[in-house]
């Protein structure tokens, strides 16, 4: 069993352990979860440390690292051919940063769940299953495997939101689930279509191997998604285009893009703090990762022709999300919408099809990962204390909770793209990439880049407005004296969780090469993959 498998299935062991232990030992659950996630984090750091940055990955299996390949399902389906599903995992520069990020955010998530006392057994068990699924998604290279993990991820989330969530949790949970499932069942159809179109050059069988799908030579001529002699169309739309659109749709729900984002504010607002953290920190990244790993790598030709639209969607998301965030009165909802806006940058960067844009998008994902996690955690801190997060109900918190205010201010400024923090590097390079797109003739016009930069301005507006409204001025609270007493400053545990995230934001802001150096080769490889079709 290789390192990656251990990384993936370690939390499953934790789940079993938690399930086996009697309820009387419920105090130990969180320690088990913490221990295992910590172990995972260490493991992911080991992966990071031993990662060979010069290897590209993307469509070359030999350039992937820590690869494990086991034949999993082999079925003879007669005329349809042989079904070939492998347990194939590996990391390249695209997945590695996200894996490290996930383990870190998971750690934060477990830390944030310290005070869960409503059936902790189920809670931590589900959290660990989610953990497994997430790791699986980021390392799976077989589409079937990917899909399995992708769907498995949804289940624990449904329950985590639905059982431990807020008032309208049922609505939020089912909305989230149906939204995502809708995307993924349609994705399944495309997976099936790809399966029929691609042949493993070694065995001659149809395959679910994503890397084979990325190589045009492996497509059967005339098959549904073939490059050559493809006369297939669906309702008049060429087959490859429809494949791309559907896959994009599936991942775009996760990203989320406007107008497929409406599950997000609901899910975030209703989810308990740790789940919000994980949702924002990891799950949104799956969308971006999927677009890079699946949509763009498997359909490079379509990616090259549709990127104008994708960039447009990205820009619209940026502005739309930011404007929505500005209108929010609920702090958590505001941050949720800010996520929409920030993830719009990811899409814009990806669509720019430049090395800068793509790397910026990846960086933005990583950065948004722990920054949004930190933000949601901060909201959670407030909510824990007074069970309210309505912005107008707070005033002048700075005098009451100076440490908290400091953390909030840092997190806000880091998120609004203050240089020196990671979000800046991400956003700046997305913008630079988008500008560069015109020089590279990838078809993304410059006004989109300008539109994106207006998003940066708007993000400053809503963060600063909130900061001023809630934290500055004379202390005046809705709940009066009761709240005043309840609003104690951050305790050590909370600081321990927050500090690394913000420190990391700073560290990555100052030394972006920590991320860039690892993903650069992969990004270039991806660009090379797409370039012939531009």
């Amino acid at each position, binding site marked *: 069993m290789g390192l990656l498998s251990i990384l993936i299935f370690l939390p499953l062991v934790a789940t079993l352990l938690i399930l086996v232990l009697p309820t009387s030992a419920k105090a130990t659950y969180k320690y088990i979860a913490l221990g295992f996630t910590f172990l995972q984090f260490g493991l992911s750091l080991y992966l990071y440390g031993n990662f060979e940055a010069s290897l590209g990955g993307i469509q070359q299996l030999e350039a992937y690292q820590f690869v494990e390949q086991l034949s999993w399902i082999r079925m003879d389906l007669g005329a349809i051919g042989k079904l070939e599903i492998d347990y194939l995992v590996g990391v390249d520069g695209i997945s590695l940063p996200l894996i490290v990020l996930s383990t870190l955010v998971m750690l934060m998530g477990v830390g944030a769940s310290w005070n869960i006392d409503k059936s902790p057994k189920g809670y931590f068990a589900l959290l660990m299953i989610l953990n497994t699924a997430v790791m699986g998604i980021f390392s799976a290279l077989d589409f079937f495997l990917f899909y399995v993990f992708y769907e498995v991820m949804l289940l624990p989330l449904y329950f985590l939101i639905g059982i431990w969530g807020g008032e309208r949790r049922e609505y939020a949970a*089912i909305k989230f689930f149906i939204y995502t499932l809708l995307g993924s069942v349609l994705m*399944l159809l495309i997976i099936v279509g790809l399966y029929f179109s691609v042949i493993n050059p070694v065995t001659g069988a149809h395959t679910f191997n994503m890397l084979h799908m990325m190589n045009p030579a492996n497509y059967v001529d005339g098959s549904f998604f073939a490059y050559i002699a493809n006369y297939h169309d669906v309702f008049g739309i060429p087959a490859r285009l429809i494949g791309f659109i559907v896959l994009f749709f599936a991942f775009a729900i996760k990203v989320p893009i406007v107008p497929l984002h409406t599950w997000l504010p609901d899910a975030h607002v209703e989810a308990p703090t740790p789940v919000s953290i994980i949702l924002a920190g990891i799950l949104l990244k799956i969308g971006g990762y999927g677009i890079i790993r699946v949509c763009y790598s498997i359909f490079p030709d379509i990616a090259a022709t549709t990127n104008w639209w994708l960039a447009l969607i990205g820009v619209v998301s940026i502005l739309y999300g930011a404007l929505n965030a500005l209108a929010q009165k609920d702090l958590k909802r505001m941050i949720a919408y800010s996520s929409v806006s920030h993830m719009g940058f990811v899409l814009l960067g990806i669509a720019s099809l430049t090395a800068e844009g793509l790397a910026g998008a990846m960086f933005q994902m990583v950065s948004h990962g722990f920054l949004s996690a930190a933000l949601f955690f901060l909201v959670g801190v407030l909510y824990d204390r007074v069970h309210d997060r309505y912005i107008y109900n707070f005033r002048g918190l700075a005098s009451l909770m100076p440490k908290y205010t400091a953390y909030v201010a840092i997190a806000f400024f880091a998120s609004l793209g203050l240089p020196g923090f990671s979000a800046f590097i991400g956003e700046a390079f997305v913008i630079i990439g988008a500008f560069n797109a015109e020089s590279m003739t990838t078809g993304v016009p410059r006004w989109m880049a300008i539109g994106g930069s207006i998003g940066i301005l708007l993000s400053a507006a809503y963060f600063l407005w909130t900061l001023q409204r809630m934290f500055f001025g004379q202390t005046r609270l809705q709940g009066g004296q009761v709240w005043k007493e309840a609003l104690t400053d951050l305790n050590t545990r909370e600081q321990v969780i927050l500090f690394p995230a913000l420190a990391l934001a700073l560290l990555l802001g100052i030394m972006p090469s920590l991320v860039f150096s690892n993903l650069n080769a992969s990004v270039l490889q991806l660009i090379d993959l797409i370039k012939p079709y531009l």
Partner: protein
Amino acid sequence: MNVSIPNILDQIIASVPLFKPELALIIGFIVCIFIALFLEKRWRNSTFIGCIVTLGFSLYYLIGQLSTTATGFSGMWLVDTWSTYARLIVVCSTVIIAIFLQQQHSKNNGDVYSILIAATLGMHVLSSTSHWLMGFIGIEMVSIASYILVGYFSHNKTQSEAAMKYVLFGSVCAAVMLYGLSLIYGLTGNLDFQSAEHLQGLMDAPEAIITLALLFVFAGIGFKLSFVPFHVWSPDVYQGAPTAITAFLSTIPKIGAIILFARLYQSWSSTAFYFSELSTWFMTIVAIVTMLVGNLAALRQQDVKRMMAYSSIGHTGLLLMAVFAYQDLNSYLLFYIVAYVLMNLATFIFIDQIEQQTGSTSLLSYTGLGKKMPILFTAFTLVAISLIGIPPTVGFVAKLMVFTSTFSVFQSSGDTGALLLLIIGALTSAISLFFYFKIPLYAFLRSSDQPVILKKQFGVLLVIAYILTALVILFGIFPNWVMQVLA
């Protein structure tokens, strides 16, 4: 063909080995009647044991037939992979149903087991023939046995109403089918639908009459499969019947009927018969409508059994899709059947177990039960996940394979119908999430203040259900365990 009597006798005698499993059932049937008459009073579970033994014998002989492909009784009896595996599944699930019945209705139920065996026999007949006469006999055997099963325990209004609706609707469908069959017989002079003469006769016959006849015939099969528009009885009957019987109704009769239907479709599709193209359309439309109706109507249900009735209608749509996409290998249809049976049996056992505790099958009565029966509801949720078709469960693999084969049809033919099937199939699985997840929604997400006093929770049935759940997951992760057997 040599029609001299000794020849026929020879043939019959030669065919008997092919008939061993059924012979075991016939003997068991008679023996069970006698046991129920004479032994039951003194020895409570004697009929049950007799039933299990009978089924065991049948199973034993079936396993012996595993790699046999043969015809017997002048071509009226087919033994091939389809029939053998279908019968295997039938017998296995009947064992579970028998245990189910024994657990829930242990008093004065001796006769039920013999009827159960009779139904099993009917299923065997249905799944191993391509002859209309045998088909009709099979359908009627299963039907009549089911009528009795539904009506047998009817102590109150709903149960008797369910039985009445079932029997009347079923009889009408059977009568209509019979009439259709008579027309087909008249037009072709042959009752073996796989034979060339039969097909030739159909092709020569006037289109109007043949259309009428075929649609009449589909009425009978449709009743068994409960596809639209012959699905209307199933929600009422499923709800009204005792849960053990509902479990039976929702699984076993469908197996035989779908096998028969698949044979029928297979023998017609891609022939010059004008109906072959039409039947493709027919299948597509029926499958789509069935999936839609089943899943949409289920959205509003408040009774779990009724909801499961609609769910099984929805699954029928998928089964039809599997039939539609048939190419040259039966394993994925069988796989779907296996998956379907596993899921449905487990579901109904869970429903029954909860009913034992709360006395209700209403979703509302599930409120907050997740805390009190965590293991049961976790397993129930897993099965529900499988019913939706989310990995890593067997339901997902089954659905994937159906989609796969449908896609290959689509790719090779460019048929819009196939595409529509795929899209609707995908969409309805998303829709189905909503109602299947009402179960965990009520059980886990809501909490009730009404204290529920729980009785003893351990039973053979639950163990079976947990094993089934485990299989649902295991086969989901390692589908090739099943597929290697089936292929």
